[in-house]
Each structure stands twice: as C-alpha cells, then as structure tokens.
C-alpha cells in the first residue's frame, strides 16, 4: 500500500513535499567517490539549488551517501552511522562497486552488494559517476520521496533480523547497540 501514490494522505503529501526540498547529505566519504562530491557541491554544479547540502553529523543528516566500495571495517561504522540517523533517512549507493562489487568483485575485504546490508533507495552507477549523474540521482530520490516510495528506513525496520543476519555474517566482532527507533 505504501507504494501506491493514491494511498498517501494529504499530510503525507505535504510532509514529503517539504522533505524532498531539504536533503542534507552526511559528509562521510566512505570511498573514492568522495572526490566528485566537492565539485557537485561547489559553484559549477551547485547542488544546493536542489536543497542538497552537507551535514556534519549523522543526527542532522537525511541521506547517507555511500560513495563507493565499502570495506568490512568501514561497513561496521556505516551501519552504526545509519542507525544513528533519524527518520526520515535515505541511502544512496554511489558507484558501480556498491551495486555489484565493480572492479573489486574478487577482493576479500569489500562488500559487493550494498542492498543486502542496508536498504538502498537509489543507486547511481558509474565509476566515477559524474556530478550530473549525482544530481540526477538526487532528483530521482526527490521524485521517490514525493511519491512516497522512498521507504528504505521502514523496510529496514521491518526486516531488521534479515539485515542483521547479513551484517553479522561479515562482521565477526559485533559490538553494537540495539537498533530501537
């Protein structure tokens, strides 16, 4: 039902309209994709006109942008960061390596499919995706938010056990607080 646009209540429509115009991205460059974020944010591409801007801490951020490959060591921190973020929250997978491992498909230290570990709302492909692609990814996310389809956080809550099992499979030493929001 969540996916049906007609089922949105009027309050949801207003809420989503507001949310889509203020996407704050967590400043966490997890991989090499972080290099195309400064050009996206600065004068030429100027993502701020879409309401996209950086946020310093997870609690203020709406979007977790996974910029590229995630090593197992970073994965642990990313999960922690994602769980600290407050609703509404979205995940964008950035670059080929989040989609299918990219050129690191046989590496022993990087994860290959991001959406098995975190709920991904939008993927941006490419190695490296250009700033235009990043902007288009954000526009896609805005569209999904407006339609009420960007419900990754809800999905994570509903399927927490499945996600947890996947996460624990690659992170041997699991010391994390419980996820309770």
């Amino acid at each position: 039902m969540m996916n049906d646009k007609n089922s949105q209540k009027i309050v949801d429509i207003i809420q989503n309209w507001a949310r889509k115009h203020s996407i704050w991205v967590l400043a966490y460059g997890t991989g090499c994709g972080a290099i195309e974020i400064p050009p996206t944010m600065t004068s030429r591409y100027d993502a701020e006109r879409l309401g996209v801007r950086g946020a310093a801490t997870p609690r203020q951020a709406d979007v977790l942008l996974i910029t590229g490959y995630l090593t197992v060591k970073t994965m642990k921190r990313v999960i922690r960061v994602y769980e600290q973020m407050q609703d509404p929250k979205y995940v964008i997978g950035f670059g080929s390596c989040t989609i299918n491992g990219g050129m690191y498909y046989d590496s022993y230290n990087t994860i290959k499919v991001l959406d098995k570990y975190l709920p991904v709302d939008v993927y941006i492909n490419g190695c490296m995706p250009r700033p235009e692609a990043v902007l288009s990814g954000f526009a896609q996310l805005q569209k999904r938010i407006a339609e009420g389809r960007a419900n990754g956080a809800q999905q994570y809550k509903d399927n927490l056990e499945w996600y947890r099992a996947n996460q624990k499979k690659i992170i041997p030493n699991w010391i994390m607080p419980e996820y309770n929001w």
Partner: protein
Amino acid sequence: MREKATTLYIGPQHPGITGNMMVKVQVEGDTIVKARTEVGYLHRAFEKLQERRNWLQSFTLLCRFCVPEPDPVEESYARAVELLEGREVPERAKYIRVLMLELARIGSYMLWYGGQNGSLGLYTMGQWSVGDRNYILDLFEELTGGRVYHMYIWPGGVRRDLPEGFAEKVLRTMDYLEKRLKDYDDLMFDNTIFQKRTQGVGIISKEKAVEWGVVGPVLRGSGIKSDIRIDDPYEVYDKLDFIVPTHEGGDIWSRALVRRQEIRQSIRIIRQVIEQMPSGEYYNRIPNPHKWALPKGDAYARTEATRGEVGMYIVSDGGVHPRRIHFRGAAYVHGITLLEDLLIGENVADISAIMNSLGTCPPEIER
C-alpha cells in the same frame, strides 16, 4: 591545575578528516597529549587482486590508488614496466605525459586549496578553486574521456594523441588560472584568519623532516630542496626550465606558500611543454595483453606527486601475471607515524588543518 585527559575519536565520519581515517587523540583541555591514527577503512587489497590480473588489467586498478591525483601513479607504473621490459617511449609521448602530470598537479592543488581553507572555516575558497578545477577536469575529459580516472598514461606511451586545438585550450585555461591565482592570494594569504591559524602551527623542523623520511611539498616547506623532477629526472623534466620553491618555516603557512608557488611553476612547465612538443608517434604498441609477459626481474620507478614521492615497485616472475606490484604512497610515510608525532601539543581545532597541509591521502596508505 592539571586537566583530566579525555579521549576523543576524530573520524572516520568527520567532515574535517581528509578522507576516511581516524585519529584517536587524548586531550587535556584543548591540547593534544597523545595521538594515534587508525587506518584501514579503505583497504581494497589491490596488490592481492593483481595476482589475478595481467599486466594491462592491473593498470586499470592502479589509478584507483590515489583519488585526487591518479596520474602520477599511472606514470610510475608505466615507467617501471618500461624499465623492466626495456620498452622505448616515443618523444612526443613523454611530452604529453609531462603535460598530463602537471595538469593533474594543478588540479590536485586546487582541491587542496578548498580543503585547507575549509579546514579553517573559510568556505569561499573552496567554491572558487574547486569550481575552477572543473576547467582542468574538462581538459582531462576531452583528452581521456574521464574526469577523475584517466587511464591514459600506460606502458609504451599514452593512449591517444592530443585532439585538434587542444593545446590552445590548455593555454587558454592556464591564462585564466593565472589570473585567478591573484584572487586566491587576496582571499587566502592576505586573510588574517588564515595567517593567524597557520603561522607557527604544525612545525616540522629540518632535522625531523629528514629523520622521518618526509617527502614532497612538506619537505620543501621545511627548507630542504628536494624534488624528484630535479634529483632523479624522468620523462623530459631535465629539458625544462623551472625552479623548486622552498620555505624555511616548516609550518602550515610555509607549506601553503610552497604549494602556491608550485602552481605557478606548473603553469610555466605546461607552457614550455606545449611550445617544445615534437610531432610524431605517441605510442609504442604493446603486444596482445593476454600474452604479454614481462622478463623476470624487478624495477622501481618514482614520480613527484603533489604529496611527494609516489613509487611503484614491480616484480615479474616471467609470466603474464605480475608476481607483485607494491605501491609506495607519499602519504604512507607522513600520514601515520609523522602525524601521530606532529599532533602532540597542538589544538584539537588544528587537526584538520594539519592533516590537510600534510596532504594525507588515506586511499594510498591502505590501498
């Protein structure tokens, strides 16, 4: 009264950290008494994956070693392979390589401008310099097809010739940047905030710089004239006229001045390269990459990047696949041990500025 020591974790998710790494510091009040870096967040095991790739496939992975400036890495690899194999490089390719490397150097410094000033809270500079960097990336895009990763300088030469009218575009961009550099100076070096926050902060003395094996602009900022382009010249740097700026202070300010002057020198080099560039072949063709075996032996080639000496050590067992490719990142040296030592006695607020001035680049530490 002595304050109680508190442990702070700066990173890995922290806007001031250059890339994805962590510095664990113990502070008393605002002063750091102990620092310990933790790296490994970006370890993709390139050097393991190369066991499964052939010599040309490895090359595609290699440029991912350092994100802000991948060309010196390609250059080091290409030269190491050529050294081992004894492959000749056409003269024109050498000039094109130098052009590429110097453009990459300017591009990387433009990004550094943004990072260094952003770490001190001066965000206008980033808007200007990162925006202007796009003009260099446009040149790269026209030449190689990629903005960030070029995969252009490969064993045997370069991948394609300069397109028509490219040289004029480069010169036009250089003229523009030269004009802009003055604006940057007004905004950055004349800025009292920048002066106060960088002068006398993060001092590396001459003796310490030598002892800890510091390289690149950081070493030159400590007053030692050392540059691989001069000391161990590669490609055509021995035919070009440029100077290596040094400053005595050893603080962030001196390192910033060194970098600032190097941009000017790079522009000079680019103009000379375009003037002197000969015509002719640009690529000495390699055989079918799937059957391309290098002779048994090893080679080490190094290149001056914006962070210092970038080296590539390759070992061949006579086969199609490399036995070992080991990359020496410039930040490998001063990003870990030196940083831990340097931060002691500094303020917490200066961590980010110091890291930016050292040019710490975690992906090349962890690879």
